[in-house]
């Protein structure tokens, strides 16, 4: 075991209510303080981010009567990256009568997270999941239905029931547009003031409480002060620290990281999700990676050739996938995990793909791709349709045509997207896929109230760390974002705000606001006047390579130590040689990116430190030193059943001239207590 010197601070309390697991949320709601409608009108709330979590929170808080200011860096709240979520949203409705329940959804989620999540939060998530579906249907979200007019479901990885509601491969879009419509209704009523093309550049903390933010108007460049009685961050995850990920180009960690620099603890940064089914990278100019929904694993079978020479021939273009006979194909997930087959959780599927490709069985020219094949499903559906239509002795071609139609109904937009990017027809030849960074389970630390250690700062959706442990199951991110925004935060924030009904407007002409604004302006000035020799992307790509090679799907102590050193050197070079064209008081996309990458260059180091500190393998965090003889993750519950929440090591001033080292962060542990489930070794065999 590598021991590193980590400075340890006081342990954290999650403020979990007493009582039996299924009763905790009810007990909590019955005991919290409420704010009267007349007083809600006197209270201001800032919501940063308008994805599923932010938009649903802003709309719900405004409906309750609070005054909400909402901020988005895009030109409209509808553009937030939640829109790109494809496969679906889980809910324990048990409409399929296949044995689902709140308990099972909770259990699958906590097990899927490899027992590194918090029991009470996860149960609450399962408990409110059904309401999300009811709510969305009332908002006009057009979920898929069957011929009887009732809602349809499909299955996702890591579970044995069908509890996923979906709208083709565009579930995130439809749910976000639902939340966007609720937000629009409140904007029309004047209860939400919407600030599009605005970016949060600092959190303002007054006497230990979050009391406002500093923003930049991205069109005019104006630096603005906004105050409120509470600040809510729904600003998403940090996958773009890897440069290439399935996140949008603009997805960034700046709001969360700057809150972290102001004292909010950052929890479990090493828990990142590398999604097994993404379109493989093709060229060095690639700017992002594209996900192919996990829902495809309902019908697609993953394989590589059994023979090394076949894999080589495929790579060299001498063989086509359909030339390889059935008996020479290795459906390695079905072979290794017969119980769950192609629907094992994401971390397991990703590592298995890497294992095969590392062993030389990769199928594209880079050697980093496996097949996702729909031929079996097309034939199965085709036969079913032929039977339904009463066709006697249908030909192979007829069956295939009928089957393709079913596949198109289910995944049409995904197949089209694949064809656009790869220029191959996935109805005729298997898709090629490879793992890519997709989601981050880590994030700002919050307690049961979704409140950070900084009072008055609430963190929701992917931006917080709380519900998915070390690995998130498919179709659970939409569930968590909307649960936090619609149904949890509107209660918990009231209990905090009840103390401030006599506070009056928070002034912005105070030293705390002035100081924060000045620091923001100075850093912008630094960027524009540095006149170095390299663009922002130059540094971002270099950081991404270090992260992917040494802090990616598989990690070891030596590589992590190297990564920390290399990131420090790169950061040093960044502050010396960064070149940002243009001016401060104009639309300046390079300036926006410079801030993101400055923050990623710190976050990456903390991520590596967290991975180095956690001497175990769990979920998406795989340390090569800690594995079972057959290559599965080996947890260490005795030493690591805790949340690692990190405190920023220095006063966050003038980092461009005085170096800061996130690897000197202070560790605060929140011990994870399992009172209702017993952590076991995850088995999907």
């Amino acid at each position, binding site marked *: 075991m590598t021991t590193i010197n980590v400075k340890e601070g006081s342990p954290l309390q999650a403020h979990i209510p007493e009582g039996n697991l299924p009763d905790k949320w009810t007990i909590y709601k019955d005991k919290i303080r409420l704010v009267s409608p007349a007083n809600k009108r006197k209270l201001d709330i800032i919501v940063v981010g308008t994805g599923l979590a932010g938009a649903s929170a802003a709309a719900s808080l405004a409906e309750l009567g609070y005054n909400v200011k909402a901020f988005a860096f895009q030109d409209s709240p509808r553009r*937030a990256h939640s829109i790109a979520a494809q496969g679906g949203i889980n809910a324990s409705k048990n409409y399929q009568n296949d044995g689902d329940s709140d308990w099972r959804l909770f259990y699958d989620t906590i097990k899927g997270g490899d027992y590194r999540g918090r029991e009470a939060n996860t149960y609450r998530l399962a408990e409110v999941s059904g309401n999300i579906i*009811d709510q969305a249907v009332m908002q006009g979200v057009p979920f898929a239905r069957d011929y009887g007019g009732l809602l349809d479901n499909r299955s996702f990885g890591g579970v044995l029931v069908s509890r996923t509601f979906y709208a083709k491969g565009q579930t995130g879009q439809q749910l976000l547009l639902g939340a966007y419509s609720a937000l629009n209704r409140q904007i029309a009523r004047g209860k939400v003031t919407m600030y599009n093309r605005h970016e949060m550049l600092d959190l303002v903390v007054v006497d230990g409480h979050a009391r406002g933010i500093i923003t930049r108007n991205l069109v005019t460049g104006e630096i603005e002060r906004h105050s409120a009685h509470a600040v809510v961050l729904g600003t998403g995850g940090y996958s773009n620290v890897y440069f290439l990920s399935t996140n949008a180009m*603009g997805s960034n960690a700046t709001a969360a990281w700057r809150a972290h620099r102001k004292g909010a603890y950052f929890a479990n940064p090493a828990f990142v999700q590398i999604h097994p089914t993404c379109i493989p990278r093709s060229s060095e*100019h690639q700017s992002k990676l594209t996900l192919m929904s996990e829902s495809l694993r309902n019908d697609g079978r993953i394989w590589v050739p059994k023979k090394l020479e076949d894999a080589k021939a495929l790579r060299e273009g001498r063989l086509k996938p359909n030339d390889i006979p059935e008996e020479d194909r290795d459906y390695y997930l079905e072979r290794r995990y017969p119980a769950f087959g192609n629907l094992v959780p994401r971390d397991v599927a990703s590592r298995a793909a890497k294992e095969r490709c590392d062993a030389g069985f990769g199928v594209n020219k880079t050697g980093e791709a496996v097949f996702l094949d729909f031929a079996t499903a097309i034939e199965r559906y085709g036969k079913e349709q032929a039977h339904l239509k009463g066709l006697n002795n249908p030909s192979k071609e007829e069956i295939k045509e009928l089957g393709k139609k079913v596949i198109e109904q289910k995944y049409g937009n995904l197949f089209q997207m694949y064809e656009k990017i790869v220029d191959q027809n996935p109805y005729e030849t298997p898709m090629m896929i490879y793992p890519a960074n997709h989601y981050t389970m880590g994030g700002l630390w919050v307690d049961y109230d979704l409140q950070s250690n900084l009072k008055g700062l609430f963190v929701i959706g992917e931006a917080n760390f709380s519900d998915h442990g070390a690995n998130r199951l498919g179709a659970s991110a939409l569930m968590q974002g909307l649960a936090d925004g619609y149904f949890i935060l509107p209660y918990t924030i009231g209990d905090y705000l009840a103390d401030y009904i006599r506070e009056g407007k928070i002034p912005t002409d105070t030293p705390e606001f002035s100081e924060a604004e000045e620091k923001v302006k100075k850093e912008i000035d630094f960027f524009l006047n540095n006149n170095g020799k390299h663009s922002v992307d130059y540094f971002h790509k270099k950081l991404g390579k270090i992260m992917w090679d040494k802090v990616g799907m598989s990690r070891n102590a030596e590589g992590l130590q190297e990564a920390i050193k290399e990131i420090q050197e790169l950061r040093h070079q960044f502050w010396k040689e960064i070149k940002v064209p243009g001016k401060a008081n104009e639309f300046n996309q390079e300036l926006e990116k410079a801030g993101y990458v400055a923050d990623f260059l710190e976050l990456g180091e903390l991520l590596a430190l967290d991975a180095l500190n956690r001497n175990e393998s769990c979920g998406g965090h795989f340390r090569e030193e800690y594995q079972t003889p057959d290559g599965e993750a080996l947890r260490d519950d005795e030493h690591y059943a805790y949340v690692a929440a990190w405190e920023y090591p220095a006063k966050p001033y003038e980092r461009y001239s005085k170096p800061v080292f996130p690897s000197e962060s202070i560790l605060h542990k929140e011990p994870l207590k399992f009172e209702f489930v017993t952590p076991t070794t995850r088995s999907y065999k």
Partner: protein
Amino acid sequence: MKLNLKIWRQNGPNDKGRMVDYKIDGVDSDMSFLEMLDMLNEQLIAKGEEPVAFDHDCREGICGMCSLYINGEAHGPDRLTTTCQLHMRKFKDGDTIYIEPWRANAFPVIKDLVVDRSALDRIQQAGGYISVNTSGRTVDANNIPIPKKDADDAFDAATCIGCGACVATCKNSSAMLFVSAKVAQFAKLPQGRVEAADRVQNMIAAMDAEGFGSCTNTGACEVECPKGISLTNIAILNKEFLLAQTK
């Protein structure tokens, strides 16, 4: 491949703007159109010139942030494709490519190829919602069965990404396809019927107030829509509008 680019540069809404020529070499056919622009921008920065501003975000065709008029077509030569999903294999070595912003009175230019599409948000705020609070205390989701056909039609209308290609491509700069998509989505669903009459009238009033032109049924919007939003939705909108007016 080598390309000649003619790109609209405009330094803010009050600048007159002009086409500027750029030459670019080493473009790979697997690159996306926006990756080609990334490459150009990196070269401009290295030369000490200002990069070209353009809107983009998800780069997988769903957020609606990217735009661009490419060789006289919204989102370029491909059908059912956003600019971010357009790949350079659609072009040939030596091609000249004209790149311009969306042009419409309701979409003022912010900088270069970036326009202000907030008018579309304001139309949605006028009625693009069902007035239900987000308490979760509604009826069970399966209490009201919805015929699969209606649900599928509502979904097809709801896939609009709000990019504004329909407006940019319309000779009248009409936003009818955009507005009709939302009206039709809710018109097909029982939950949306309750406010149908108010919704269609309020959204149309907002559309007119924003300065979008009238629809003359040329159908160009449908052709250029990257999500294949059907003209049928405009017929539904007209029907809903007529019904609302005769109430």
